[in-house]
Structures are given as structure tokens and as C-alpha cells.
């Protein structure tokens, strides 16, 4: 119970930060929505840990719900890092295009 409350406090902290960033317009609408859904799902998973535990057992998994949540979180994080890498690669491409345009126009 104590761990669940602690996890919820952490999620609330991140949600407050997310709303502040949205207010300052430092995150785009889509990005805000993505993280909002992510944290709300995380909160829901923690609140409904026992029903998820039963569901996990019913599906035939041997681990506890918290373990399954951990695996899913790791997978989500891997996906997010991958997306980040692609975004950075695209940004680098744009920087190079700008660099090229400036070099040619300057002459």
C-alpha cells in the first residue's frame, strides 16, 4: 500500500510538471497528449494492481503484475529511445541542409 501511494505521488509530480510545460508551451499538443496518456495509464495500473494481478494469472503468466508492468515499461522506454534517435537523426539532416544553403548563399 505504501509503495502504491509513493508511486502515485511520483506520477502526480510528473503530471504537474507536464501541465506546467504545456502552459509554458514547451511541449507540443501531440507530445503532451502522449505523455498524459502514458502517466494516466501508469496511475491506473498502480491503482488497479490487484485486478491486473488476477488478469495476469488468468492469462497464464507466472510473474506478479508489478513484474509484468516493469517489462512493459522497459519496452516502452526502448521504443521511446528509438523514436528519439530517429528524431535527432532527422534534425541533424535539417541542420546539414541549412549549413549547405548558408555556405552556398554566402559566396
Amino acid at each position, binding site marked *: 500500500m505504501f509503495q502504491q501511494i509513493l508511486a502515485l505521488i511520483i506520477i502526480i509530480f510528473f503530471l504537474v510538471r507536464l501541465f506546467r510545460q504545456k502552459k509554458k508551451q514547451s511541449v507540443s499538443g501531440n507530445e503532451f497528449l502522449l505523455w498524459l496518456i502514458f502517466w494516466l495509464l501508469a496511475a491506473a495500473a498502480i491503482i488497479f494492481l490487484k485486478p491486473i494481478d488476477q488478469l495476469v494469472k488468468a492469462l497464464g503468466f507466472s510473474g506478479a503484475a508489478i513484474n509484468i508492468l516493469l517489462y512493459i515499461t522497459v519496452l516502452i522506454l526502448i521504443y521511446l529511445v528509438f523514436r528519439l*534517435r*530517429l528524431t535527432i*537523426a*532527422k534534425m*541533424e539532416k535539417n*541542420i*546539414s541542409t541549412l*549549413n*549547405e544553403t548558408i*555556405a552556398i548563399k554566402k559566396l
Partner: protein
Amino acid sequence: MKISCVIPAYNEASHILAVVTQVRPFVNEIIVVDDCSKDDTARLAKNAGALVLHHVINRGQGAALRTGTAYALINGADIIIHFDADGQFSATEIPDLIRPILEKRAETVLGSRFLNKKSDLPWSKEHLIMPLARGINRLFFNIRLSDPQSGFRALSRDAASKIKIQNDGMAHCSEILYQLMAKKIKVQEVPITVTYNEYGQKFSGGLKIIKDLLIQKLIN
């Protein structure tokens, strides 16, 4: 027939003057792309008679070649030569590279260190890194050329317009080969001699090239 030579340069103050001077008799225009060097590369190249383009941010050899090639095309080049700034290539071999294009036998001519001329390649490069690179090129890109990483090449205007270098770093060599094959551009290899002042691309650099090519595939 306008022949332009594109030389990407980053911190090459110790070689650029000699390189530009040696190349000048064989071409109509020398375009040095200064990739945001911290030394005197740009000034020395300009004094030697090259046209100097400045990158405001250092982006790598592939990006510099792209800038230089784009400028050469805008400026009406008929043949574009890619040449290194570190003095490892021999400018006297430029006529050998452009001859097949002039005689309409090829649209792109690639200098090869592994034909009948002998370059003083480091042992590990000749017997380990290059065979591995050749194997990867054959396996993944179906490229069957003797030199997988030569930076000395000549392109007809038509071929240079078709090739779009996407990789900013050293992966552009493999990328150009891949595009030449994919776009069915007529290619010929000619032997060249390379003098190694430094070791150049290391094994770790080779791994980075593979990584860059994979990322490039994903974002396109």
C-alpha cells in the same frame, strides 16, 4: 568542358596549400569546402587559388562533399572530381579518372587502391578492414567493386545530379556506391596510388559507418 574538383577540408592547414597547388593544373575550378576548421585551412586554400565555401557548423566529410557538389552543379561543372585534402591522393592521376567519362565509357569513375597499382596501405587495412568492408558491401548492397571506401572519384554532371549524398559522415562512400548501383549508373574503376600520411579510418570508424547506414535506411 568544365572540370571542377571538390575538396572537403577540416583542419587541413598543413596539407591544403600543396593539395590545391597540385590539383590546379588538371582542373578548371577547385572548390574547397571548409567544414568549420579551427585552423587556417580556408585562408590558405583561398590564397592557393581555390574557391572556398564555409560550413558554419562542422558536419563531416559527406556533408562537405554534398555542399561542394551542389555548388559545382550550380556553377555549370561538366565533370566533378572528389578529392581528399590530406594529400593522400596523387593529382597526376586525375586525367586517368576523367578519361573514361570523356570517352563516354563511364558516367562515374572510381579510384581503386586494389587494382594493378600498389598503395602503401597499412597491413590491417589491406588484409582485415577492407576485405570486411568489401564483404559487407557484397552481402547487403550487392556491390562488387574492388575498393569499398575510396574517396577519389570522378562523376559526370548527369551522374552527380542523380546521386544524393544523405550521410554526413564517412558512410557517404558506401552510400555513393549503393546509389550508383541502384540508379544503374555506368561505373568504371581505375587504379590509383594512395600515400598514407595517417592511418585514416579505423575499425571503430567502420562500425560507425555501418550504424550510420542503418539509421539512414530507417529515417528515409
